[in-house]
């Protein structure tokens, strides 16, 4: 690799679009040639810094930040506090247990038919009769 054929390789080198053999040659040359190294750094800086594309306007930036703050406020107001979720689950579990207990009480009260394991329903009726 010489200084003459370096320039076309620099862009490919910077973008990583270069075969390994050529990359090695460019790297070796840049280590020993200050002029080509300066050219490479100038290219790199030129491409990575401001390319003249207009930035978003101040109004657009302000509008975005305001929208983010509003979204965060909505999230905060609907989010569980640290003690609310365990309390809610605890209450739900308690209610479920109470309901289950009530159902069992009703189903095993005086009006309920005695349950006999293994006995078909028809035989149970005959017995009672």
């Amino acid at each position, binding site marked *: 690799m010489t200084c003459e054929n370096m*320039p*076309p390789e*620099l*862009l*490919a080198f910077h*973008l*990583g*679009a*270069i075969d390994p053999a050529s990359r090695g040659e460019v790297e070796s040359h840049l280590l020993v040639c200050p002029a080509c190294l300066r050219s490479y750094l*100038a*290219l790199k*800086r*030129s*491409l*990575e810094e*401001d*390319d*003249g*594309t*207009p*930035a*978003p*306007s101040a109004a*657009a*930036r302000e*509008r*975005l*930040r305001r*929208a*983010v*703050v509003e*979204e*965060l406020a909505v*999230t*905060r107001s609907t989010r569980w506090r640290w003690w609310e979720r365990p309390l809610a689950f605890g209450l739900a579990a308690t209610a479920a247990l109470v309901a289950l207990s009530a159902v069992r009480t009703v189903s095993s009260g005086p009006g309920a038919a005695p349950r006999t394991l293994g006995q078909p329903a028809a035989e149970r009726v005959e017995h009672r009769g």
Partner: protein
Amino acid sequence: MISGATSSDEELLESLLDGDVRGFDLLHARYERPLFAFIRRHHPQQQEAEDLLHETFLALLRDRAAARAATNLKAWLFQVARHLCLNRHRTQRRAAGALSDPAASRAPAAELHPERILLGTERQRALRAAIANLPLELAELWHLRIGGLSYEEMASVPAVPLGTVKSRMHGMVHRLREELLNDL
């Protein structure tokens, strides 16, 4: 304590999702320019590009599960931006009733800052013009690469194989070289 210099994207995101707007400020500072340049390549109109950038950043909050699940937040932001840009193209095509070529409305090559003579004014102008003339598919890759994405990350944005990205990058460099006539 989050910091623009040392905090990872994921740390800044968690901070934001925990309600700290500074997490957004730091992510915004990090990615506003490359995202905006990428979006403007699709939609050169300033207002439209600002709207799309607005929606891209708000996706961090509105689709927080997906943002959290992303293996690479930087690539995810570009994916969101691309998705929004393509949706806008489709909407415009439907409205116009004709197939429009987004590349036909590409922004003119950026003017150089006169005080900056780094690469040689003519060479820089030629390079910018060549970049502006890239077809959309290659221009996307250009902006992703300049925005700091690795090849693997770039592949995830348009969801193409890594080999396709490498091939297109080689094609882009070849095309730029031809346009610049070896001036670089």
